[in-house]
């Protein structure tokens, strides 16, 4: 039996004007290239859960686009995020039309299983590892069931997760490889689809994470790791143990965390020594009205006053911060954009990601905006790109929000500002280099 896994990777923007502007801005292009060339950890993990007598092939969707369908397979597995859902369905339809059974899984299929079922023989709802061996067995016996659901009562124990099969990748095609150390996020923000799908926050034991990293280091002479986590340092004791292990390996890496990563000076020291090059922090907003009730315990609203100190603490240790800001939150007004620009420039954030609030299907945000009559349409998945607007903002017109986003793109990602922010980071590195 042969299984073909196709990763629906890529960065999308529907708005033509934003697309045209984006490609002229170095700061935008650079992060886009990084994101679009990350391999799918889902595919590599499922490969590791596949019985040894089954051949497992890993492909990026671009491979199929360029070279055509690979039809000498017995099962096609597709994993997609929301913006690529329609492309995923079109590909699934093509495979089914030539008689190859298709199973679809991942974040979007879990949020919209009935929709995914219309284009597949089976849908994997929720985490794949617990049900994948059953799917393979049923496919082998040509008796796939319509849905395979992992138990939501007993979440998958990450201590039993296998090492992803990184050796399936042509590593020369990637500039980073991903490692997952945790699933979920305790903050449970209204807009977050991952929190809804993944449920309770869980961490992988440090020893196991290091096995995965050591496997990558054996395959790749100069690895750069991106932790595929939503919020890595929630458990500070785990974090310190992990960072001490990373410090022994001298491998550069990137991750996502909340602002509490900067609370503890010891943790920052360990981060700097561990090879961490960048932490992406979801600040979401600098306005208390916009942060109010964003997450269940209003945690981000309470933390707003700590943003500047956190950025400075991390960057002064040589750990660059990639600050994420969401535009179009209910507290935002047409005056917000200049203030966001000023904050980003004043704090010398090396990188920033400015995106528009996006109501992913079946999230609390989606249901609230639908109830308030603020969605442009009920289904708009190809526009769930984080850059395309899909709803009526509360305190400005859609045009004002789109113009505000374009203004920030031009102000933050142009070559001059980009160079200035990089110079600040170079100067920090020089100071650290001289001190060392």
């Amino acid at each position, binding site marked *: 039996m042969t299984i073909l896994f196709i990763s629906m990777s890529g960065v999308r923007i529907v708005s033509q004007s934003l697309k045209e502007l984006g490609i002229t801005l170095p700061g935008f292009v650079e992060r886009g290239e990084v994101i679009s060339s990350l391999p799918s950890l889902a595919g590599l993990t499922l490969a590791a859960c596949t019985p040894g007598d089954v051949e497992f092939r890993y492909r990026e969707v671009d491979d199929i686009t360029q070279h055509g369908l690979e039809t000498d397979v017995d099962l096609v597995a597709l994993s997609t995020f929301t913006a690529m859902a329609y492309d995923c369905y079109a590909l699934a339809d093509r495979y089914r039309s030539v008689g190859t059974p298709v199973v679809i899984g991942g974040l979007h299929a879990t949020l919209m299983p009935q929709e995914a079922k219309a284009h597949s023989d089976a849908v994997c709802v929720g985490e794949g590892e617990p049900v994948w061996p059953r799917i393979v067995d049923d496919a082998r016996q040509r008796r796939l069931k319509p849905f395979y659901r992992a138990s939501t009562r007993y979440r998958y124990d990450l201590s039993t997760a296998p090492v992803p099969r990184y050796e399936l990748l042509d590593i020369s095609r990637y*500039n980073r490889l991903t490692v997952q150390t945790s699933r979920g996020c305790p903050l449970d923000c209204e807009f977050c689809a991952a929190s809804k799908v993944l449920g309770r926050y869980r961490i992988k034991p440090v020893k196991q994470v290091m096995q995965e990293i050591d496997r990558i280091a054996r395959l790749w002479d*100069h690895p750069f790791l991106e932790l595929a986590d939503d919020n890595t340092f929630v458990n500070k004791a785990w974090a310190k143990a992990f960072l001490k292990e990373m410090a022994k390996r001298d491998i550069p890496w990137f991750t996502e965390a909340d602002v509490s990563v900067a609370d503890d000076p010891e943790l920052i020291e360990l981060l700097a020594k561990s090879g961490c090059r960048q932490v992406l922090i979801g600040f979401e907003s600098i306005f208390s009205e916009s942060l109010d009730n964003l997450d269940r315990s209003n945690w981000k609203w309470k933390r707003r006053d700590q943003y500047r100190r956190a950025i400075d603490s991390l960057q002064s240790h040589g750990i660059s911060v990639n600050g994420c800001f969401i535009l179009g939150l209910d507290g935002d007004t047409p005056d917000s954009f200049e203030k966001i620009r000023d904050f980003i420039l004043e704090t010398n954030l090396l990188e920033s990601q400015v995106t528009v609030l996006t109501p992913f299907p079946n999230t609390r945000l989606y249901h609230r905006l639908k109830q308030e009559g603020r969605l442009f349409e009920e289904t708009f998945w190809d526009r769930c790109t984080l850059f395309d607007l899909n709803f009526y903002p509360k305190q400005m017109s859609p045009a004002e929000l789109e113009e505000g986003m374009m203004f920030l793109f031009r102000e933050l990602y142009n070559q001059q500002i980009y*160079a200035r922010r990089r110079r600040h*980071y170079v*100067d920090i590195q*020089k100071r*650290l280099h001289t001190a060392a």
Partner: protein
Amino acid sequence: MTIDQRICELVAQVSRVSPDQIQPNSDLYRDLGIDSLRTLELVATLETELGVAIPEIELLGLKTPRDIADKIAFFANIPAP
């Protein structure tokens, strides 16, 4: 030591790749894994160790240690290797 050799030595320091594996025409990104973030570390190292000021924007798009050596020669006003 030539400027080429010195640049290779400093590139080795930043990339953590053994100096004997680095040639003047090695590809910084593909062969040595120096991405945009590590380019900034490289600029800091070059400026500190060689005492030259390089607008970091000038290093974007440079592909090899030889390219860097040429650029440094330009900014330090010394003959290119």
